[in-house]
């Protein structure tokens, strides 16, 4: 490489100097992010003060904690350490998870929970194998069987009824066309199917279960509802409410937008009636009022009653959330769907709902989180959810006087679940973000 003949012309790039120390590294970052102005500096210092003050109070409490004192009681904790008494969680951990479920059967709810995750995978994550959807479809019955036990023939009888009813709805149209004419065939087949399923559930399921079970007894040991409690109870009510309220909510939202007068009136009436009543009132109805109206001796499971009420409550809110999404779509979308010659079902399924649901995701997830936290209200009707178990634990003379450890533990549990839901919704929003960016 030849030297440049002109001596004062540089023959290459001068290497870059390192940036001045105040424009790089932690100093620069702090200047930009923490002390970028007088107001921000003051806020930063105040925030730091609060953080340190909290840590100063909480850390010694956490570090000086007692986990395995000689005497498993608050007294034993106090004898051992100054700070938190986590021995109560050590002693009651399984009670907080499973309630009063028989310990030798803990594998059943655990298996139900694992299967729940597997069954949810194809719904929540795109990459999961589609074949799992079959498991998702029958999961409610599997979960019920695992947690409550009983004969296997009950759930099978329910499946049989649903399959036969479904066949009547799907295939019966042509048969009925011959009887009632072209126009009413599909309607009659749908009505017959629903009528059949209802009759089957009310009249056939339990005799069938008893009959087959006496011949071929296969089943799991039955567990009464009063054995259920703790986080398991919260999760059962929460997941049933979430899973059932979304489809019901969609149906109600569409019903409210419908041109059919009766459908619309029913939807509006239902939504407004349920939204006009506090959840606690509905829980009281489930807990006490239904007992008056049912024939004496009927045992209509209290947890089932609560699940139904929570679902109805949540569905009414869900309907309004989704209606908001539907209303947010431009009118052109409907007109485009009509111009394509799509039927009502097709246009909703292919055009309107995908967009409406996408818009509504943050609100839907908010409703879910709210519903999940509302499950703690069942303490008012005496079900032993985590908060209920706190009061029974504190009623044990050994642990009376403990507050922060128990409530903190339950708060942590709810935070983990609610934060995961929130994170998932953010992932979903990013995945579905296709528009206007």
């Amino acid at each position, binding site marked *: 490489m030849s030297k440049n003949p002109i001596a004062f012309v540089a023959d290459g790039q001068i290497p870059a100097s390192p940036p001045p120390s105040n424009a790089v590294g932690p100093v620069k970052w702090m200047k930009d992010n923490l002390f970028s102005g007088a107001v921000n500096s003051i806020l930063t210092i105040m925030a730091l003060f609060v953080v340190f003050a909290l840590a100063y109070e909480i850390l010694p409490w956490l570090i000086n904690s007692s986990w395995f004192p000689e005497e498993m009681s*608050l007294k034993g904790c106090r004898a051992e350490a100054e700070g938190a008494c986590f021995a109560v969680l050590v*002693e009651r951990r399984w*009670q907080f998870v499973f309630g009063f479920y028989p310990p030798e059967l803990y594998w059943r709810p655990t298996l139900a929970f694992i299967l729940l995750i597997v069954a949810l995978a194809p719904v929540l994550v795109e990459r999961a194998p589609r074949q799992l959807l079959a498991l998702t479809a029958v999961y409610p019955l599997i979960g019920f069987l695992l947690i409550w036990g009983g004969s296997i023939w009950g759930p099978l009888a329910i499946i049989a009824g649903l399959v036969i009813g479904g066949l009547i709805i799907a295939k019966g149209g042509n048969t009925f066309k011959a009887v009632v004419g072209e126009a009413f065939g599909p309607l009659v087949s749908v009505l017959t199917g629903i009528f059949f399923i209802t009759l089957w559930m009310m009249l056939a399921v339990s005799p069938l279960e008893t009959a087959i079970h006496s011949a071929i007894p296969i089943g799991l040991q039955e567990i009464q509802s009063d054995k259920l409690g703790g986080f398991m109870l919260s999760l059962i009510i929460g997941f049933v409410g979430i899973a059932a309220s979304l489809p019901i909510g969609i149906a109600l939202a569409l019903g409210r937008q419908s041109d059919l007068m009766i459908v619309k009136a029913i939807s509006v009436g239902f939504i407004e009636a349920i939204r006009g009543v506090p959840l606690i009132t509905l829980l009281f109805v489930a807990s006490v009022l239904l007992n008056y109206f049912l024939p004496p001796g009927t045992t209509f499971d209290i947890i089932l009653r609560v699940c139904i009420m929570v679902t109805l409550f949540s569905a009414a809110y869900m309907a309004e959330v989704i209606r908001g999404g539907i209303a947010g779509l431009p009118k052109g979308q409907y007109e485009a769907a009509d111009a394509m010659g799509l039927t009502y079902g097709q246009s909703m399924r292919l055009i309107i709902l995908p967009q409406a649901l996408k818009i509504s995701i943050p609100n839907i997830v908010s409703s879910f989180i709210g519903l999940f936290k509302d499950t703690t209200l069942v303490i008012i009707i005496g079900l032993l959810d985590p908060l209920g178990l706190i*009061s029974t634990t504190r*009623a044990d003379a050994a642990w009376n006087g403990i507050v922060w450890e128990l409530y903190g533990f339950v708060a942590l549990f709810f935070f983990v679940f609610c934060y995961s839901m929130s994170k998932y919704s953010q992932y979903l929003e990013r995945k579905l973000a296709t528009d206007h960016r």
Partner: protein
Amino acid sequence: MKTTHLLGAAAVAAFAAGTASAGTLDDVKAAGELKCGVSTGLVGFAAPDANGVWAGFDVSVCRAIAAAVLGDSDAVKFVPTTGKTRFTALASGEVDVLARNTTWTFSRDVDLGFEFVGVNYYDGQGFMVPTELGVTSAKDLDGATVCIQTGTTTELNLADYFRANKISYEPVPIETNAEAQQKYLSNACDVYTTDASGLAATRATFEDPDAHMLLPEIVSKEPLGPLVRHGDNQWGDIVRWTLNALITAEELGVTKANASELANSSNNPEVKRLLGTEGDLGAMLGLEAGWAAAAIGVAGNYAEIFEANIGESTAIGLARGLNAQWTDGGLIYSPPFR
């Protein structure tokens, strides 16, 4: 108008069906278990242990009834009830008997249609103050801030008491006992008032119980006892006399340990009638002859149950006080077994 009638008719039919159903005793025997309403957790009176087994002073009453009726003290389904659901749970038949520190009052007995079968604990509203406050009587509490549970009879009792004594106070409303403990310990209020048994239990949990004292005044009567629905007198009798059997057992010196021995060896005819070796008291109730012996066999007589759950040897450390036998100057008194 028509719908209203239909609904009303349905409701009446349901109520009629409810009252006309077979007796509670038959229901309990058919179900093979006693449904007993208890508190969702009250120190010494009702609480499940780490294995989910319920224990406590009120729970022992349930177990005694189950033993008397079914011969098995574990054949009890405990239904936790809150202050708001307890009465509907009993009225609707969700529970057969309510043993849940419930005060026997006129309106509950008469208006709500229940039958209090007796009193298993005489309580009363008291006051707890820090010793350093230097107060020796509730009458010195002029101007004090008082932590009080809202919506309870204690709230009304407090207002009555202070008005009658022409002194003023400032209420700090709280919702639960847990909240009260926190507020009281952080000096948000000078005084905490609730049932004296509850105060004693709360004080026992403090790091330094000696820094707090209960004032001598008891400002209300809170007779607590088990209750059943109106209208099924046989069932009411069974619950009443099971409780009386426990009380009489103490009076006659029948304990868990010596019951089976005394049944044959005792010279006292009342002991023999109680334990079913003489007379036919059990048959009159529609139960086995050894019903009372079975009830006593669960956790012993009234004194034994008291000592094991809330007595002076426990953390709660309640003295017998009003709840001593009438022969010891207390109010616990059972009609004779004759």
